[in-house]
């Protein structure tokens, strides 16, 4: 019988430890993605509820518009979040949204009256996980430091998930008693994958 070398035993131990701890660290992130996918896959929509409305006087420099206007207003209102909107002024008014997971503030600025109306809308837990699932996203890159950090985390979740799958294969391969069943299951998974992807794209 061939005995394992000390280096391969050390490698196996390290891979097992990393697989365990990285997997546990990723668990809540994977839950967020899996649960939100179930809701998105069945088009379950959240019904946002208004949580409050206030009108706040503001000072705006003449001729200010676009993103400088948005940032100036947000600074005065002490609001931060992911900005949706460009601050284009029409008829002395502009509206933009400031989103966080599960909540959005709709800011309507009246430049003539020099006031801003802020409506806060909550979409709850489901809204929060769907927001996180969609960020950064294909059509929008984050503009808030916190969502940029989430984007970095989302990328890390991908890299670490890939590590978990590869390390999982390695750990499974070490279990000689499971090799045959494992190969059959990989084959079955691969076959179902091909049977689903081929009609989706090629037929």
């Amino acid at each position, binding site marked *: 019988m061939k005995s394992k070398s000390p280096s391969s035993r050390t490698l196996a131990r390290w891979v097992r430890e990393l697989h365990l701890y990285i997997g*546990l660290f990723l*668990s809540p992130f994977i839950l967020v993605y899996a649960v939100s996918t*179930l809701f998105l896959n069945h088009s379950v929509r959240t019904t946002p509820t208004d949580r409050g409305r206030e009108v706040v006087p503001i000072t705006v420099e003449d001729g200010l518009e676009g993103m400088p206007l948005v940032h100036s207003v947000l600074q005065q209102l002490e609001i931060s979040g992911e900005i949706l909107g460009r601050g284009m002024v029409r008829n002395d008014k502009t509206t933009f949204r400031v989103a966080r*997971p599960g909540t959005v503030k709709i800011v309507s600025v009246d430049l003539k009256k020099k006031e801003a109306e802020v409506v806060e809308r909550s979409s709850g837990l489901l809204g929060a996980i769907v927001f996180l699932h969609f960020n950064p996203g*294909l059509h929008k890159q984050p503009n808030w430091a916190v969502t940029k950090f989430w984007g970095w985390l989302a990328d890390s979740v991908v890299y670490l998930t890939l590590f978990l799958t590869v390390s999982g294969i390695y750990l499974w391969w070490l279990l000689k008693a499971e090799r045959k069943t*494992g190969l059959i299951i990989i084959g079955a*998974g691969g076959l179902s*994958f091909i049977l*689903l992807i081929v*009609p989706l794209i090629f037929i």
Partner: protein
Amino acid sequence: MNKREFPRTFGKWNRKIHIYLGLYFLLFLWLFSISGLVMNHPKWFGYKVDRSPREAQITLPQGLTDMEAAKHIRENLGLKGEILLRRQNRKGQLIFMVMRPNKRVNVNLNRESGLAKITEVTPKSNVVLGDIHTFTGVRAMWNEPAQERDWIVTRLWSLSMDAVCIGLLYIVLSSIYMGFQLREKRKYVIASLGTGCALCAWFVWGLAMTA
């Protein structure tokens, strides 16, 4: 099975199912992970599509609903894919899209003249990956009056997405169970799981609470 044997048998099968589910969904996990990464970085790969317009003469039978008419046209034009039928705003016209991950066909039919303007949009492979990732057939952003999957392939793909999610939920829960079974490593298990939970909870609840 006595009380002492149960945890051992459960632990053994829990581990086996954890391994088997991971192996079964391997390609699905790679697909969704890589396509997710590609969608997070549209600038890395660009967003290019090829468009080829054409026209066709179509005769519709009387009394069809918009969806029935769209299905009729899809069949007559030999198209395959999910019909995306938004609310019809232009009188005398039927506008819809037949989409699948590697092709979108826009159809704009003038009901009176029977002339249909058809534009085939073929995206690049990175966009195809993104479309596979999001291809549920019932996206809220499409704003369809009837949220239903009208292509059998979409139904199967959507079912497989559910299966992957449920499989992942089991893999996660089984890993937590297995982690807590390792008594000598319990503090590290709690530390890694706790760090992940705390970070995730801050994003899910914390940010809204401090808004």
